[in-house]
């Protein structure tokens, strides 16, 4: 059975269509990247398949069960979600943040117990950041903080991760490291769906890519079939050259578009 089936879903916000008639499936171990320009509805789509927004039409099935019949708690046992931005208020300790991932398994009048602490610690160990456990998560670097949130969703013990532009606040090196971690997790059977602004990254980590434009998937498939000069031109409205590098990986190089400013209105 598929981990997730998305069938013909649509969503509007204040009568403005954000996306329309999107369908795809996620199998065990899939890493799916959603590419698209700014404002094309990637974040909204991600929130819909996570149950954070209610879709207008269509159906979402998590392991065959319609999402509408599931409570937030049941969804949270299947799906771990990391939003693109986190607005921090209080300087919680890293371990206290990670242990929040146990909430799906604890009733509202329960506190995390020793068993939950152990699971949280093992998530930190898996990602190699156990040494951060007593630090304040607000004082970490962007890369460390993203790993803390990843540790938290692992603590949820979900079948699938949904990540909204997980690399957007990371430096060059940490971007690649995070993608490799996701790739490793997928090999262990976790499915990953993420949005991305970096077509290059799909060759590093993804086995499937969705190309999203104006609220629809215009292409869906393996990175080598879908991430083409043609599609990238459609998405970003610039010319892109794909260059082959080692073992099937490609690099996407944007070409200069000879953009001209209209100096008639320019004054200084």
């Amino acid at each position, binding site marked *: 059975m598929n981990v997730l089936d998305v069938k013909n879903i649509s969503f509007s916000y204040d009568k403005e269509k954000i996306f329309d008639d999107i369908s795809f499936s996620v199998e065990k171990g899939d890493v799916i990247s959603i590419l698209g320009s700014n404002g094309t509805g990637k974040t909204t789509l991600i929130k819909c398949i996570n149950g954070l927004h209610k879709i207008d039409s269509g159906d979402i099935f998590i392991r065959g069960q319609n999402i509408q019949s599931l*409570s*937030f708690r*049941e969804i949270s046992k299947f799906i771990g979600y990391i939003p693109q931005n986190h607005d921090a208020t209080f300087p919680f300790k890293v371990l206290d943040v990670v242990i929040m991932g146990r909430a799906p398994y604890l009733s509202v009048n329960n506190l995390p117990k020793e068993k939950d602490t152990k699971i949280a610690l093992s998530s930190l160990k898996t990602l190699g950041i156990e040494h951060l456990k007593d630090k304040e998560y607000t004082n970490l670097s962007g890369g460390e903080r993203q790993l803390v949130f990843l540790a938290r969703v692992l603590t*949820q013990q979900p079948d699938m991760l949904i990540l909204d532009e997980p690399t957007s606040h990371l430096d060059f090196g940490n971007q690649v490291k995070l993608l490799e971690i996701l790739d490793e997790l997928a090999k262990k059977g976790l499915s990953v769906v993420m949005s991305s602004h970096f077509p290059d990254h799909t060759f590093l980590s993804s086995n499937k890519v969705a190309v999203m434009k104006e609220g629809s998937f215009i292409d869906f498939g393996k990175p080598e079939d879908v991430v083409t000069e043609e599609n990238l031109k459609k998405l970003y409205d610039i010319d892109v050259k794909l260059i082959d590098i080692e073992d099937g990986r490609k690099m996407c190089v944007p070409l200069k578009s000879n953009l001209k400013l209209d100096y008639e209105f320019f004054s200084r």
Partner: protein
Amino acid sequence: MEDKEILIVPIFIILPIALFFLSFLIGRYPVSPYEVICTLLSPIFPNLAVSQTVTTIVFQIRLPRIIAALLVGACLAMAGAVFQGIFKNPLASSDLLGVSNGAGFGAALGILMSGSGFIIQLFAFIFGIISVSITYLISQAYKAGGILVSILSGVAVSAFFNALISSIKFVADPMEKLPEIIFWLMGTLANVTHDKLIMVIIPMFIGFVILFVLRWHVNLLAMGDEEAQSLGLNPSRLRLIIIVAGTLLTSAAVSITGIIGWIGLVVPHMVRMVVGPDNRILIPASLSFGASFLLLIDNISRALIAIEIPIGILTAIIGVPLFLYLLRKGYFQWA
């Protein structure tokens, strides 16, 4: 963290208990520690009773006041701590969210209309809930404004209910009701009686238990609604339950002692500096320290001068500089 807890937890348990016993020694009529202990034990061992005068002072005068200070301080500080958590706002408290003035208006209306303890408390609760709902709805309507908007909407709601309180004063009978309302609005522990305490003990107890039980989930709400929901909670429902419990505490406190400001804002911050932001420890520690802090201030007011200063004045005089100190230390990371 574990080692630190072992040290900290006993302090927060011992502090209010020690202050409770010490507070019997303060007041115009001198009573020795030995007499206090004997008198407190005298209901169980009648032969220990010291004298009728001491018994009256301990049980009729000092005990209700000490218990009221402990309870009201605990209510305001605990409500402040949870409001700061669930609104993701380090500047939230019953006063700044408009709950205190809303409850104050309800209670003033209750005094004007009947004066019965039950009516005063009921009205305090109803208008406390109304005011916090308005504040919350305004801040939701202008979501992009963040903490600043929710503070400003709290200020606006407070001002609105303040105006309503003034209108009550304006229509109140100047010989009887008006002085009662005015003195009570300043916040005072002087008029607390056993009857009033018995009235509020149940709603306070309910509020304490609900917030104590839900304290870990306040951490999750403090991460934001989307994250809380993705962790399996129903954030709106949980927040509603917590708001009702926090308002229950505030309105119960307001209905017996009037509006006592600054405790709910300052105490959770002082406690957070010691125990950190984890609400599993912060909420019970705020309860304990809020109780101790208000009792301490009340003791100071009783020991320093012969006349009775309404405690609301003192908490502001002490609370404002403390708040400014915390602000200067850059403790509020909210900009």
